[in-house]
């Protein structure tokens, strides 16, 4: 897929991947073998009929193509951009065995963007059922659950704690990878199905679960995600200039600090930036810091091979000039007399035997400490689930990791009528896995509401 030039990228937050032209999309679609037993569909967490929508594209029938995608996926412009296709649909493409797999994500994005340009195609909504559902959180899981339930005729209200809906799509993933106009358009699509969105409402604080039921909601879906930061827990971590990835990205994406002082929220990016971690969030933080003028080094405790970030994002980061320091991990942060970070003391690592994730375990090499100069540090070592909605609700069981316990079939929590899905159940994962869970939960909620249960 065509990309913005590196020179243009490093000075702006414009979207990097440019998307196919009609011609390119048709040419790519024509390469599809239209397998009788499509392995790509098995790889898709929401089971989009991939060969069918690709066939429509190859024939230039884009409207039918987007309709086909939307049958299974309410947020295609988002998934086409941020799904890890290389390990899902595209990773299973038969054409990939001997050559280049079909770029399914780019095709999905193409039809979604085509729809945005040419005007939204109206989705059929079932007649009202008279049932009310509260959805907690407006990220990928919440939006998907809401859309699915609204299509089935339920009266859905989403409650969002922040001032803007979209969850991680809005506060976490940067503009250059996930333009906010597109997120807003997808949210508007969900609203067009009749879904109401109430921002600035923290369920669990402003309105409790019990109160939701008292307000007349018949079921609740919790999709509050993994929005709590993880820190390293090493000395000096509270020095000024050290951010959690969440804080850094919230300031930049949600609060638009990259447009300070037009927007009031500042962010401080110094001359030398160290980003700790090797996932997509670390790549987002590193590439954001680079665009704000920093000389950026990613510090990761294993090697490039074990990095959990998408290959594509690692390549983008490298092209843009992000440096990588592998097999090293911080042991403490060193500050100046004013409390500002000046350096990261790291220890070298070597790889041992594979751990439970199948990746080789990093082991510190004693006495190998060294310093990396840095006046800004972003700690991007993962997020924790955010169970604020159910804090103090004894009826809802949590795991020792703070995730919500659900029935794996129905996504129902230990409280009748309360369902949960996405990162709040699995711990931090991907946009599409949250959407896949939300779809299944929505189906179970529908069955619950329509009298399958004892209600």
């Amino acid at each position, binding site marked *: 897929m065509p990309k913005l030039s590196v020179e243009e990228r490093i000075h702006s937050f414009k979207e990097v991947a440019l998307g196919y032209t009609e011609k390119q999309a048709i040419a790519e679609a024509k390469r599809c073998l239209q397998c009788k037993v499509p392995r790509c569909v098995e790889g898709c967490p929401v089971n989009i009929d991939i060969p069918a929508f690709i066939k429509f594209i190859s024939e230039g029938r884009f409207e039918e193509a987007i309709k086909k995608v939307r049958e299974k996926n309410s947020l295609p412009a988002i998934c086409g951009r941020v799904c890890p296709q290389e390990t899902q649909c595209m990773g299973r493409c038969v054409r990939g065995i001997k050559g280049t797999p079909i770029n399914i994500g780019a095709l999905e994005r193409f039809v979604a963007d085509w729809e945005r340009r040419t005007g939204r195609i109206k989705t059929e909504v079932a007649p009202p059922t008279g049932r009310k559902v509260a959805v907690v959180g407006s990220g990928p899981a919440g939006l998907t659950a809401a859309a699915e339930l609204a299509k089935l005729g339920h009266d859905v209200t989403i409650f969002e704690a*922040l001032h803007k809906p979209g969850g991680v799509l809005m506060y976490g993933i940067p503009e250059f990878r996930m333009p906010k106009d597109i997120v807003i358009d997808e949210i508007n699509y969900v609203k067009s199905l009749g879904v109401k969105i109430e921002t600035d*409402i923290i369920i669990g604080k402003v309105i409790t679960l019990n109160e939701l039921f008292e307000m007349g909601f018949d079921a609740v879906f919790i999709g509050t995600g993994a*929005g709590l*930061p993880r820190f390293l827990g090493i000395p000096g971590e509270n*020095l*000024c200039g050290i951010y959690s990835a*969440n804080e850094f990205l919230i300031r930049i994406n949600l*609060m638009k600090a990259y447009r300070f*002082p037009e927007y*009031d929220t500042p962010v401080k990016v110094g001359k030398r930036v160290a980003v700790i971690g090797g996932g997509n969030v670390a790549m987002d933080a590193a590439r954001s810091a680079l665009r704000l003028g920093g000389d950026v080094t990613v510090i990761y405790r294993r090697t490039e091979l074990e990095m959990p970030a998408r290959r594509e994002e690692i390549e983008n980061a490298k092209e843009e000039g992000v440096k990588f320091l592998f097999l090293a991990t911080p042991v403490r942060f060193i500050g100046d007399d004013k409390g500002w970070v000046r350096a990261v003391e790291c220890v070298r690592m070597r790889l041992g035997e594979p751990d439970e994730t199948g990746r080789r375990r990093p082991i510190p090499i004693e006495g190998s400490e060294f310093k990396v100069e840095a006046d800004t540090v972003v700690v991007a070592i993962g997020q924790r689930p955010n169970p604020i909605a159910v804090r103090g609700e004894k009826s809802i069981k949590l795991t020792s990791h703070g995730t919500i316990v659900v029935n794996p079939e129905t996504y129902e929590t230990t409280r009748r009528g309360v369902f949960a899905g996405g990162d709040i159940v699995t711990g931090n994962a991907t946009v599409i896995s949250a959407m896949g869970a939300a779809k299944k939960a929505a189906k179970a909620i529908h069955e619950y509401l329509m009298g399958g249960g004892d209600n």
Partner: protein
Amino acid sequence: MLGRFQVLEKETLAPGIKRMVISAPLIAEKAKVGQFVILRVDEYGERFPLTLVEWDEEKGTITVIFQEVGVSTKKLGSLKVGDKIRDIVGPLGNPSEIRYYGDVAVVGGGVGTALVYPQAKALKEAGNRVTTILGARTAELLLLERELAEISDELYISTDDGTKGFKGFTSDVLKMLLEEGRRFDYVFAVGPAPMLRAVAEVTRPYKIKTVASLNPIMVDGTGMCGACRVTVGGEVKFACVDGPEFDAHQVDFRELMNRLHAYIDKEEEALKHLEKTEGRC
């Protein structure tokens, strides 16, 4: 369905210090002493915290008192009665531990002289004997003096320049009382971080339970970002969800003060930008 943050009353209490009554029924219904809200004045605005001073469940209103120091408080202060605040979320943070302690002192400095009001009132209602110590830079910046006099068993005033009451700091007054032999069972302090630290140092030798309401920089205010992290007793806490009140003897105030200064240069830049653009819209 949900009340939408209209400014109902606005009053200037002292130069640069304003009191606002805002329509926010859901917040008013849930608010407890010690909690705060996060506001965003307009589409370009920051999210910033303000402690709740009063709330009225029946009227569906909340009251905040703030000093216009940065862009956000200046923008808030420029709103007129009838204007709407873009976003308010809350109540956030844990409520204060209000109970019978016995003889208590509440200490408020700067705009904190307004924020001790709900504490003093609630502690009095819980049966405590309440001694209030208020401090400001100068006499005209003292807030809610009359209201606090009404509910306090004793009221002491200090000003940095000696224009009213004792010349010096609130911590000096507290120290003097303790040296005179007064004993408190509980001390609550709210105000600038250096004042909180001074109060903590005064009560430390007497082993008096001392709680400080902290005011670190916050962004989301719901535990997501960690901007407000403070070290308390060697552990990292988030003021927004673990606080905002902590055992003052355990707080690393030096770190807090460093972190409060992290954006000083940016704040000046933002203010300049605000002055430049104010005439335009």
